[in-house]
């Protein structure tokens, strides 16, 4: 059971990365390759706030949210908005991710830093398995975040406008939606969420300059399995990837963990090319 808990927690980390990808994807139909790096920066800010500056948890949370949100806003202004072709945004955001990888190495070095979890570090017994408080928190945060975003997007006009933008940007504009401002807001919001998630992801994975690259890859796989734009899909994708990785590492060996994940990805994409939770709509002419 410990293995299952570990897999679930890992899956929750990947799902949270995918959720951030989705926030940008839904509003801009683009993929922010630097999203995982933003979470990584959040983890480093959490480390600096909690360990170096010894600030209170709420203050560090605020700091992480504000700083990563500002970083995301700058990214949108410099690497997304000026780019006309959405395909080129993949290149510019990839550039930002490389910049962030380098910048974090310069500032925080290459050694993994242990980010303390504010909910304690004592291992707990749960249904016959052992689990850390941060792992429970990760799973809960993933479920609550997906539930909240799904609900809010259907309940509030801004949410409906975002979904509308994702489906037909021009039609949304003609309903009075300021699509550029809303896309910018969603980008900044995804940064704020990434900053907050750094507080939870850091204690599980350590704050390390290679974190962004590994989270980006698995987050992308989760998104491909669940379906781009589907919030519930991120939970299922995260569950599949996390459990597959944990089980394969335990029973087949560590070197088979990634292979197993990609075999599952290819199998799912062969059956449902748009992912598990996205239906392909036939184009009517």
């Amino acid at each position: 059971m410990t293995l299952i808990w570990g897999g679930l927690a890992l899956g929750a980390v990947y799902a949270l990365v995918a959720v951030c990808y989705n926030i940008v994807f839904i509003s801009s139909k683009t993929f922010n390759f630097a999203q995982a790096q933003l979470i990584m920066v959040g983890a480093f800010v959490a480390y600096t706030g909690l360990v170096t500056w010894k600030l209170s948890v709420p203050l560090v949370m605020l700091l992480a949210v504000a700083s990563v949100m500002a970083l995301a806003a700058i990214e949108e202004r410099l690497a997304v908005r000026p780019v006309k072709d959405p395909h080129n945004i993949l290149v510019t955001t990839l550039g930002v991710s490389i910049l962030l990888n380098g910048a974090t190495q310069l500032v925080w070095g290459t050694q993994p830093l242990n980010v303390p979890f504010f909910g304690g570090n004592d291992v707990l017994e749960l249904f016959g398995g052992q689990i850390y408080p941060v792992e429970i928190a990760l799973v809960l945060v993933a479920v609550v975040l997906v539930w909240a975003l799904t609900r809010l997007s259907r309940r509030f006009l801004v949410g409906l406008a975002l979904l509308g933008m994702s489906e037909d940007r021009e039609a949304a504009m003609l309903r009075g939606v300021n699509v550029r401002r809303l896309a910018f807001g969603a980008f900044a919001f995804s940064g704020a969420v990434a900053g907050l998630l750094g507080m939870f992801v850091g204690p599980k994975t350590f704050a390390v300059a290679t974190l962004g690259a590994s989270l980006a890859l698995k987050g992308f796989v989760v998104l491909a399995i669940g379906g781009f734009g589907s919030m519930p899909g991120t939970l299922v994708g995260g569950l599949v990837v996390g459990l597959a990785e944990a089980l394969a590492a335990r029973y087949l060996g560590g070197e088979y963990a990634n292979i197993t994940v990609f075999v599952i990805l290819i199998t799912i994409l062969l059956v449902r090319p748009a992912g598990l939770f996205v239906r392909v709509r036939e184009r009517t002419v």
Partner: protein
Amino acid sequence: MTTQQTDEPILRVRNLGTGYGDLRVVWDVSFDVWPGRLTVLLGRNGAGKTTTLRAVSGLNKATAGSVELGGRDITKAAAHTRVRQGMAYVQEGKRVFHAQTVEQNLLLGGYTRRLKRTELRQEAERMYELFPVLGDKRSLLAGTMSGGQQQMLAIAQAMMAGPRLLMLDEPSGGLAPVIVNEVMERVGLLKETGIGILLVEQAVEASIAVADHVTVLDMGRVVLASAADDLDNLQDAYFGRTPAQGSASRDS
């Protein structure tokens, strides 16, 4: 037919020029739309009707001329701000949000109105009265409805913004004739709410039946602007007959 030109038009388009990038499609187009009346833009495929609407709505940049809404120059205003100022545009192709329910589509239509949720729902109820077919389907995803129902929804969604001017681009496109009549009947009823309507259509008879004014475009230019009951001139312009040919055929 009411064609008094004394009251102020809600939309005044003057010498409009527009196109796509370097390609100029529309030249020197002028027309008006009055409150409570319907102006129809007619023309063959490629005459520049949709491009004109796109420029009036702000989706395409006007390279020449001006667009005034309620006496206010909006030529340079962004598309979303024109909606706030009272302009609603229903594009061709029944462009509703397929992944949202009918109700959600309608609520989103009122995005610019800063109303409370309950007030927005009341507005939606008003739309269900105007378009009864939508009332029974409020919880259905818009993408699952028929073409005619989607067209009604698109119009109702635009009406949710409380517009002073409603622009409709080929609402009959791809619909069965019996549905076209129903859609046109609803469009005719919308005039009674006092809004001005600008209609682009290829279904000439159905649109003229509800129109007050007709503007005919050809090759991106206005070739006729008249009252809808001036059918002789209209036929000449629409079917491309020269005045001489037209009078010859009438004489015979």
